[in-house]
């Protein structure tokens, strides 16, 4: 039993539940212990329709997509119109800058940029929400739901919470400690 000493380490408590038994009451019980939703995170092998935790998830993806698209149109116009003007050559009586061509090219580049930007944003988002030591547990994919709770550097609190989770019906609880200087 470690003493209640001042360390800079942070603790994360992960409890594994059987999906059948993991129900909103459980969360209620934990909330009642004064743990805000912000510190909680639910890990699941597939997306859960109802968001059990009421914490806002704001992702500005749509806006990024639109911005990407607009940039793409610019690129398209440069290719179809700009390069033609840079070195104007008459070909077959077609105008140097042909509107339909500009349309087609910028449509494609618009799509390209929109999709690429959206993807990058998504990837970055996915890759960097995992701060605060949340880690995957293979057993979750085997058909269970994980509830992870972030605790500050208070070791004692970590233990109480793990108790709490066990009462709530977690068939397994583990406390992870992340060295802050790592």
């Amino acid at each position, binding site marked *: 039993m470690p003493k209640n000493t001042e360390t800079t380490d942070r603790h994360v408590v992960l409890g594994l539940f059987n999906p059948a038994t993991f129900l909103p009451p459980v969360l209620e019980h934990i909330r009642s212990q004064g743990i805000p939703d912000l510190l909680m995170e639910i890990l699941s092998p597939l*997306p*859960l329709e109802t968001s059990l935790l009421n914490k806002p998830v704001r992702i500005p993806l749509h806006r990024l*997509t639109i911005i990407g698209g607009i940039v793409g149109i610019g690129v398209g116009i440069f290719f179809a119109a700009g390069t033609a003007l840079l070195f104007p050559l008459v070909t077959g009586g077609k105008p140097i800058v042909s509107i339909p061509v500009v349309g087609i*090219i910028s*449509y494609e580049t618009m799509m390209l940029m929109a*999709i690429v930007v959206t*993807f990058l944003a*998504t990837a970055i988002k996915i890759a960097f929400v995992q701060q605060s030591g949340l880690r*995957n547990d293979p057993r979750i994919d085997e*058909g269970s739901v994980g509830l992870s709770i972030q605790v500050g550097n208070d070791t004692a609190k970590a233990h109480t919470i793990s108790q709490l989770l066990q009462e709530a019906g977690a068939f397994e609880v583990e406390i992870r400690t992340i060295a802050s200087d790592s």
Partner: protein
Amino acid sequence: MTDRPTVWEEMPKINRDLLSPLQTTTWTYYLWVGVLSCFVAAGAGAWTYQIQTGIGQTDLHHPIFWGSYIASFVFWIGVSHSGTFISGVLRLTNAEWRRPVTRMAELMTVVALLVTTLFVFYHLGRVWRFYYLIPYPNQRELWPNFRSPLMWDATAIFTYATASTIYIYLPLIPDFALARDRIQGWRKTVYGWLAIGWHGSQAQWRTLEMAIRIITPLIVMVMISVHSIVGFDFSMALVPAWHSTIFAPYFVVGAVHSGLGMVVIGLYTLRRVYRLHEYVRTEHFEKLGKLLLVTTLLLAYMYFAEQLTVWYGQVPDHMAVQNSLLYGAYAVPFWFMVSCIYIIPLVTLVWPRFRQWPVGLMMIGLIINLGMYIERMLIIVPPLARPRLSFQWDEYFPSLIEFAILVGTLALALLLYSLAVKFVPVISIWEEKLGKKHAQEH
């Protein structure tokens, strides 16, 4: 809910089943890969020879400047439409049954696109100067000519290739994570990178789903534009029987037609090889059969509209082409093609019982693709072979070198696909689980 095992209880089994192709490999697989590699090598040799000696190794000659390479180019782009259509359109329409099919279809898309680009290079007279096609600042200050439909094509295909790679990657992230935790060795690290730290938190799930929701409609639009532009390559030209407004939509539908056929083949084979009968069930074949029936009718309708217009118009230039198809030099392949892509699918697929017969559907898939390949040839060659100056009328049939390259490339496509199967779960695991969940809830 208690008598039947819930999806949660099935999960270990699902994981095991769907990851098994990645874990266990039989000697037949190695044999298969070995054979394919030989064919690929032969094709590569043929291409090298063609580059060394000259593009004259084909049977092309004026006025028939385009032939089997361009036809194959069009064909393979068509195949690439399978994935996007299945996973894209069906996702948009929330067709639950799509789930086991999407991943293997998307794989086809990516492989097909890789192959497609190859044909552009086969076709070039001076392939070592291909970089003239790339828009980059150079000392000549000369950029590619974007007024050329071929440049529209290049742009569209680049977009499409990038998009579909992204589109297959996103839903793969959770599965990569799954594999990362279950497979050891060098692959573990690779999966590790590819999973970009996925751990299934609700935030990640939501981000992922939102991204997919945004990209799906976009990629469907790209898909339609791509093959429309391939159609433009021809309809922008003055060539009789190319210069037609229906080409763009016609090409798109044709692409989906052959694409679906290809999916059926893949679906059947994979289910057979990896015993996925639990996941790929008859209903899937039946659904695909229905889709095929629809595309058959749609395509036949468009083709008829096109030919009827020509026939009734009786414009000599166009008639020359049509006659050569109906009862001229190209009559045999033409009628063969017609029966392959219209008649046979129609008379078979209308029977519900037939649609529930996987083997039959697989065979229809084969026939349709054979037919569509010939159809691509017949779209390109006869119009070129019947120029307005009848003095220049001529015929064309691919040379041995061409055949070697075509077969080699087909082998390459199969090879890439077979290798991919060993690295990527051919059925999207989490989507499958989700599907089962929905099924149980309602």
